[in-house]
């Protein structure tokens, strides 16, 4: 599991690649800490290379979304593949995230 964070056109873009399972979640949590300090900037999470996500990963995304909403930022999930999309569907996350 690899994560990168960049700022592109005033948006914070986080790229997740690999498998976000329970074992990988604590590291990802640490890696994505900067997103919690977005200070009103919109967040884009690029999932193009995200192959798998478990509920621990979902909780991570939910935490980011909740914090962003508090400061009025948007969180957009980008290029979600079918496997991950199914999990988001099953958990109702499709209705609380924005997709691109």
């Amino acid at each position, binding site marked *: 599991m690899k994560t990168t964070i960049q700022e592109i056109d005033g948006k914070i873009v986080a790229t997740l690649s690999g*498998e976000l*399972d*329970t*074992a990988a*979640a*604590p590291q990802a949590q640490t890696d994505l800490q900067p997103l919690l300090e977005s200070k009103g900037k919109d967040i884009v999470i690029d999932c193009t290379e995200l192959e*798998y996500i*478990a*509920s*621990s990963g*979902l*909780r991570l995304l*939910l*935490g980011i*979304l*909740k914090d962003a*909403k508090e400061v009025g930022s948007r969180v957009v999930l980008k290029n979600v593949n*079918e*496997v991950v999309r*199914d*999990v988001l569907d*099953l*958990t*109702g*996350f499709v*209705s*609380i995230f924005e997709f691109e």
Partner: protein
Amino acid sequence: MDNSKRSWMSRIGIVVIAAIMVEIISVVQYQRTRRLMDEEMSVRSRVILNSVANDIAHTLELTETTMRENLWEIVENLPYPDSAFTSVRLLIDDNPHVVGGCLAFVPHYYPSKGRLFEPYGHKDGGKIVLEQIAGPDHDYTKNNAYQRVTASLIPEWSDPYYFGADSIRLATYSFPVFDDADSLAAVCGLDIDLSWLGDTLNSRHHFKSTYGLLLTKEGELVAGPPESKVPEAEVDLIVDIINGNAPESMVKGKLIQTTNLNRPPYWQLARVYSTEEVFARIRKIRLQNLLMVLLGLAILAFMINRYARNEKRLRETTAEQARIAGELEVARKIQQEMLPRTRVDGVYGTLEPALEVGGDLYDYYIRDGKLFFCIGDVSGKGVPSAMLMSVIHSLFRTISAKMESPSFILRALNENLCRDNESNMFVTFFAGCLDLYTGKLHFANAGHDKPFLITQSASVLPVKANLPLGVFPGTAFEEQECTLSPGDALLLYTDGLTEAKDQNRKNFGRDRVRELLDGCIADAGMTPEKTVQSLSQAAHSYSGQAPQSDDLTMLLVKYEPGELLQDRITLSNDTADVERLSAFVKDFCGRLELDHKAASSLRLALEESVVNAMNYAYPAGETGEITVYADSNRREVRFTVVDSGWPFDPTTVLSADTTLDAQNRPIGGLGIHLTRKLMDSVSYCRKGTMNVLTLTKSII
């Protein structure tokens, strides 16, 4: 009640109408007969009347003829005055009807005899008394008849009159007697006794009321029946009819027919008969017939009523039987529908109730890759047994859904059955649980027949008997186990098989079953279905014509696991170990050649379950193990997650509400929700000190 009264009334109505019709027919026939008989009687009566008239006329004519024949002798005696007495004797003597006679000579015919001379004779006893009766106090020249005859010179008959102390009815025939010089010499009078006329008139009657009358032209009675018989009013009536010149008339039920002698003295004859008397007999016969018919109808009505009532009863009974039969048929269907209908490879069962419904049952179904099956026999037969059977059936389903151990299942069943079991019914029962991936068979028995184990040969599975269900609460049912090899089978049956009776009440027996099973093992083409059917046929042909004595139930369970893929991994309760789990699942799914999506689903479901156990099974800070078994027969995948932590059933945790918005979303609860969504079944059971969570998913 109202209905039956109405139908009874209608039946009575029919009989009454029939009676009325019979009466109408009878009346019409009577009237027709009467008319015909009236005509016949009238004709006959007239024939009789005419015949009597002819008789009388003939008799009178005979009398006149007698006179004429004796006239020459009288004429010859005329020159001798005293011979007149001889002439009178002659006249009287010659005719039985003549009772007296006289010769009234014209005045001064014999100068020697003076002006009046009338020799007279009459019969007195056997003798004839002769005397001269003319005198100053008897001047016959003043007699009407004498005057008429001397004037007209034509014989005449007088009207009848009574004469003498005996009041004999007489009539006098007077005729002129001429001498040789053709001058009138005397008037001869002959007194004729008319009493014989009455006899002639009334000698030939068939009916008491019939009588004949002879009357003068003026209606004076000449002769008739004994007087008591004829009311005077009737005589007046007859006279009226004669005067009206009607040949016959019907008055007050009496037919009056008249005719006359058609010769001097032109007397009238009448014949009267009462049609009432004639028809009284016919009417009596008619009434008798009518009574007979009415009696017959009454008997018929009674019989119809009885028949109708019996038929109604029969109809009601038949309807009731049909209703019960219909309900039993429905019950039979329900019972058959309770039997498992999903086909499971290697499993075949049959239940043939002896009556419409039976007290046997069997069931099987697969849960968590394990085949749960049972067979039972409720004491007794028919509806009561069937009712208890359906209770047990649903109890088995309910209890075994949560429990895996046959021993526990039997125990729970027993407790349920013992509660309020006032009818003291009991059930012999055998329950088993076969792990389809391992062949491990757990079973427990409650007094049921020991099943056959079919391996290389057929043998009786060594099963502890135990008490049947429903006898004592708190009974323990020892759990036993064995492991089946692929191809091994178990035949469960009820005593309907081994105790099938032949004509001589001998049992089919276990040995026969064993022999038949051995035969089936030798035959490679025998499927479980064919094996069970051949056993059933054998039992039926053994019984022959004898009725099926008990419900016949069989369940054959054959262990046919197919090609199995099995693996296991033991993890510590550290989420870092999820990495190893991920690798394990990927490898397993790779061996099953599952695509990325399907493999990801299985991985996620298992990961969530295992992480759950890692996080919550053991107290914080304590290390523990979690073992994951993965099994597949290439049709289904089964994961079994086993830990030895606190008893904890994750399936009772509420799923996360996936409809809430981001702000209100709780962080937890997603794991079990995902597992449930992704797998076909998720079930938990506590086995000893272990939590066992089983996940299954079809991969076809």
